[in-house]
């Protein structure tokens, strides 16, 4: 394993210190417990707080700022943050309009945010993001995972909160965006959790994990690497099979890199996916391509489609000013 590390125990803190210093106009780092807030807290709005294991940067701390999150709670790499972090972040970010937690659907994140919500005095609600269609819906399992669609929920609800939407409205909107969003990814290589020091899974040079999770969890199956268009066709079949968009509908298409795949390949994937959508008479109304929900240095990418409407388009277009997303 070759990584930029001084002391593996301090990696997260040193990285957060770097983030806070590089974007000192936007964010402020709080330690013990660890959370990041906007430099200038927004008053008179619902506080949007997300969080999760680290290793998916820029998610979530890179999305703190005007038009998106108010605070984020980074956990250790691939490990959910803890309720004390969430309570402290809520205390700092809430100015009387309530707190909306945006949580990716993993057992750890769900339980920790749940315990925080149980301990909180102020009004709060939670939007669970579960956009990954690789893992089928199940009444017994934890259910679908939350992956790259989380950014879309954070952006759209962030814009609504900034415009003065109430806690209830933010919750309803967040659930709605999530229900209209589907993602699926494929990985060529594993990733290495720094503290573990070795690859999370073994995969041969000519193999890929189809439907991989953003922690290197297995997806639907392992198979030989195939041409990009074939992969896109299959990912899109799963995504569109879930969303069932009618011809003439408009969507947001997000191609997300997992951290180890260059942009040249991500744009190629975008082109393949966009052509496929257009052939089906689906209009790509909005687009986003880049490494936003990463899995450390994993090579691979995911496709996300959100069914948009005019309200969602305009919330997507609303100004955003964060470390990793701004327009």
């Amino acid at each position, binding site marked *: 394993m070759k990584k930029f590390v001084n002391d593996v125990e301090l990696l997260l803190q040193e990285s957060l210190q770097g983030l806070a210093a590089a974007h000192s106009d936007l964010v402020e780092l709080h330690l013990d417990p660890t959370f990041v807030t906007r430099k200038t807290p927004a008053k008179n709005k619902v506080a949007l707080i997300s969080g999760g294991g680290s290793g998916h940067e820029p998610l979530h701390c890179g999305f703190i700022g005007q038009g998106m999150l108010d605070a984020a709670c980074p956990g250790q790499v691939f*490990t*959910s943050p803890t309720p*004390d972090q969430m309570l402290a972040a809520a205390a700092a970010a809430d100015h009387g309009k309530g707190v909306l937690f945006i949580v990716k659907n993993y*057992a750890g994140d769900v*339980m*920790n945010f749940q*315990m925080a919500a149980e301990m909180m005095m102020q009004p709060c609600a939670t939007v669970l993001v579960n956009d990954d269609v690789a893992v089928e819906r*199940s009444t017994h399992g934890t259910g679908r995972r939350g992956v790259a669609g989380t950014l879309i929920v954070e952006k759209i609800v962030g814009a609504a909160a900034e415009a003065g939407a109430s806690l209830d409205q933010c919750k309803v909107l967040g659930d709605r965006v999530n229900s209209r969003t589907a993602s699926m990814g494929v990985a060529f290589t594993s990733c290495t959790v720094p503290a*573990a020091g070795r690859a999370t899974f073994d995969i041969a040079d000519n193999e890929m994990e189809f439907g991989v999770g953003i922690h290197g969890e297995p997806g639907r199956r392992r198979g030989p690497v195939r041409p990009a268009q074939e992969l896109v066709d299959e990912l899109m079949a799963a995504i569109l099979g879930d969303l069932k968009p009618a011809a003439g509908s408009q969507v947001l298409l997000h191609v997300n890199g997992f951290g180890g795949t260059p942009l040249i390949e991500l744009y190629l994937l975008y082109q393949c996916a966009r052509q496929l959508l257009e052939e089906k008479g689906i209009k790509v109304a909005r687009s986003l391509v880049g490494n936003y929900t990463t899995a450390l240095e994993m090579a691979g990418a995911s496709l996300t489609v959100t069914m948009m409407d005019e309200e969602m388009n305009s919330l997507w277009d609303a100004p955003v000013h964060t470390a990793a997303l701004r327009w």
Partner: protein
Amino acid sequence: MNTQDIIAAVEAVQAAILANEQQIESLDRAIGDGDHFINVRRGCEAIAALKPELIPLPPAQAFNRIGLKLLSTIGGASGPLIASFFISMGRELEGISEPDARLFAQALAAGVEAIKSRGKADLGEKTMLDVLIPASRLLVRLTEEGSDRATLCAKLKEEAEFNMLATRDMIATKGRAHFLGERALGHIDPGAKTSQVAVFAVCDMLTGKRAAPVLSPVTP
């Protein structure tokens, strides 16, 4: 059982888990996401650092303090689950300064019940509960029967070992391994393994040289 016994038990569990690092880690890499051992170790270290604070506390408060510390230290799914276990044990032992074996067994059962409800999981889902639920039931039964310590520990170890191995043939319906479906078959669940290691550690401590009396004789 007093707080010193609790600390001794926690230390025994910590030592045993560290000694089994390689096996636990490789199980988690096979069907988890590779962070189970790191999280458990972080929890153990936090409790070790807490020791001076725990010593003067009655068992109920010691368990509660351990639970809250783990809640803010471990994270992941194991944090809230293990924290709920200790916090519930503390709640169950409220106002009891020296719980006997039977009361301790009941508190432990309440702790296991808390893991079940927090994790919305039950037997047969390829998790730590596959070791903990039967072990706790057996402990309640044996303490009610007034079983002697050596027999009790031997039977508990046997039960834990058997149930840990049985997770190999299960398809996970909870925890990270459930994403694997049938691919998890043939792999022991790392949470079940850690639980078995913990049961062995406490039993060995009770019957071995370092035997601080965690379980005092049953008082009628």
